[in-house]
């Protein structure tokens, strides 16, 4: 990654305090606190409608919170636009595949990598250089594609690759923006077992150097990957802790894991 200073392990890169989003009378997210640390994966779990996706959208800037703050690397980014947060080092993937489906895999990732060259659009240099000849962008694009295991699909149109590969592409695009904080909204959704396993492997690889927030329904994956868990029900955090603490938590068992145990 491109960070110049040697990062402290466990450093808090993103922290949310009292994050609240009300839609009319409904508090979809209510007073949520969480800290994302470098080299750590925090999993957010909870039943459908618990507010996990709203939480992700609040953290990424897709929607603005009604109350509370989101700090990134010591900077108050609560009201930043998604693009400003991205430029500050936040990368997110979407629950529903959200790619440039008519572009090739390469062009998808290249566009993401290009966003790190901060030319203003009205800078005429941007109009005359050939996008395919930007070597440093090509290099980081290749890296992201290789890391996410899509090398064989580089020149395939994104709409035609399998669902699992599209999920990998989501990750590759996010990685190409060289983020420090990763918000992954159900990266395993709709994946077959083999695909899910390789995605888990990829996420383990990404743990180093990134602070990751993982919203996921696949409990096997969550307990394999997460260093800590936050359990949400009805917009509120009912428990947070290490995986073993969460397993032992009676409130969580009642609310969420109860039927499985």
């Amino acid at each position, binding site marked *: 990654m491109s960070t110049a200073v040697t990062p402290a392990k466990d450093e808090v890169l993103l922290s949310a305090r009292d994050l609240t989003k009300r839609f009319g009378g409904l508090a979809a997210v209510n007073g949520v606190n969480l800290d994302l640390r470098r080299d750590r994966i925090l999993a957010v779990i909870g039943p459908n409608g618990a507010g996990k996706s709203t939480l992700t959208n609040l953290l990424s800037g897709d929607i603005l919170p009604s109350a509370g703050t989101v700090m990134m690397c010591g900077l108050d980014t609560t009201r930043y*636009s998604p*693009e400003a947060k991205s430029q500050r080092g936040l990368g997110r993937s979407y629950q529903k595949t959200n790619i440039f*489906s*008519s572009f090739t895999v390469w062009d998808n990732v290249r566009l993401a990598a290009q*966003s790190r060259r901060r030319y203003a*659009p009205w800078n005429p240099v941007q*109009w005359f250089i050939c996008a395919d000849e930007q070597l440093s962008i090509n290099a980081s694009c290749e890296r992201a594609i290789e890391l996410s295991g899509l090398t064989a699909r580089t020149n395939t149109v994104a709409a*035609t690759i399998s669902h699992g590969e599209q999920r990998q592409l989501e990750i590759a695009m996010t990685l190409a923006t060289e983020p420090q904080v990763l918000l992954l909204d159900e990266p395993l959704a709709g994946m077959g077992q083999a695909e899910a396993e390789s995605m888990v492997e990829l996420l383990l690889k990404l743990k180093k150097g990134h602070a990751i927030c993982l919203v996921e329904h696949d409990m096997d994956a969550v307990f394999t990957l997460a260093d800590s868990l936050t359990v949400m029900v009805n917009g509120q955090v009912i428990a947070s802790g290490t995986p073993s603490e969460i397993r032992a938590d009676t409130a969580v068992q009642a609310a969420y894991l109860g039927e499985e145990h």
Partner: protein
Amino acid sequence: MSAHSQVPLERLPRAVRIALLLGGLALAMFPLVPMDGRDFYLQMLTQMMILAIFAMSLDLLQGVTGLVSLGHAAFFGLAGYSLAFLMPTDMPISLWWSLPLTALGAALAALIIGVFVVRTHGIYFIMVTMAFAQMIYFLFFDNKSLGGSDGVYVSFKPQASIAGWDGIDLNNKVTFFYFTLILLAATYLFLRRLLFSPFGRALAGIRTNEHRMRAIGYGTYGYKLTAFTLAGGLAGVAGYLWAAQTGYVNPDLMGFHMSAHAIMMVILGGMGNIAGAIVGAFAFEYTLHLFKDTTKHWQLLMGCFIVLMVVFAPKGIMGLLVRQEEASK
């Protein structure tokens, strides 16, 4: 739909590029061919080339960025009027400053209007661009001092001699033809270059998925506003040429019909690859003249023609050409 049909025709197959080049050469040779009524055809072709520049400028918005503007003629017309008002009645002004100035003026108008309209999306963008263009249309239409509904005459062709050499005499129809052809080629090369530049790739990304563009860190507003301004400036170049060639401007140049005319040319040719806009402009104008010569109910025929084209060749003439080329492989 096959997967392939989702790929925009940005990269032109070799055969299509060769066909375009041959078409361009044929166009360049045309004035050399001796024929009766050559001046008439020269004027008609020059007009088609001007409209092709106009259509290409719209394609940057419509085909590349995905912004369908129903008010693009406003910038075409504003540039035409600028030339008309800049031109004194006693002697011609120089091309060398008046063309850049009018194009910049049109770009400035696009920038100011763009600040407001580019915030909107989809159908609202269409409505707001049309509303702005209609405002400008009626500003000129209802204002006697701006020429009113009668329009304004452009007394002279711009003067274009270089250091006393008057080889570039725009009063000469052949010279005007070549001058327009050069600007057509320059606009085409510029926009093709731009299409594959980082800026052009970002515009294509905005067309495909603006939400995702923001999530990967693009301030899409600035990109769209820049595209809108550039397109306005290029439409201004076309408007200037139009006013210079016809020697007359009226509010119709900036009206709703003119904007729709450009949209149809771009759709007919095939959107998003700039080349289609040229092909579309020529095909549209040719068909128009053909129908006008055939019957006085030419609008009816034109309507049928457009409907048939959209149904059977949704990707326009370029789409047909590419399909031909693929079939022959």
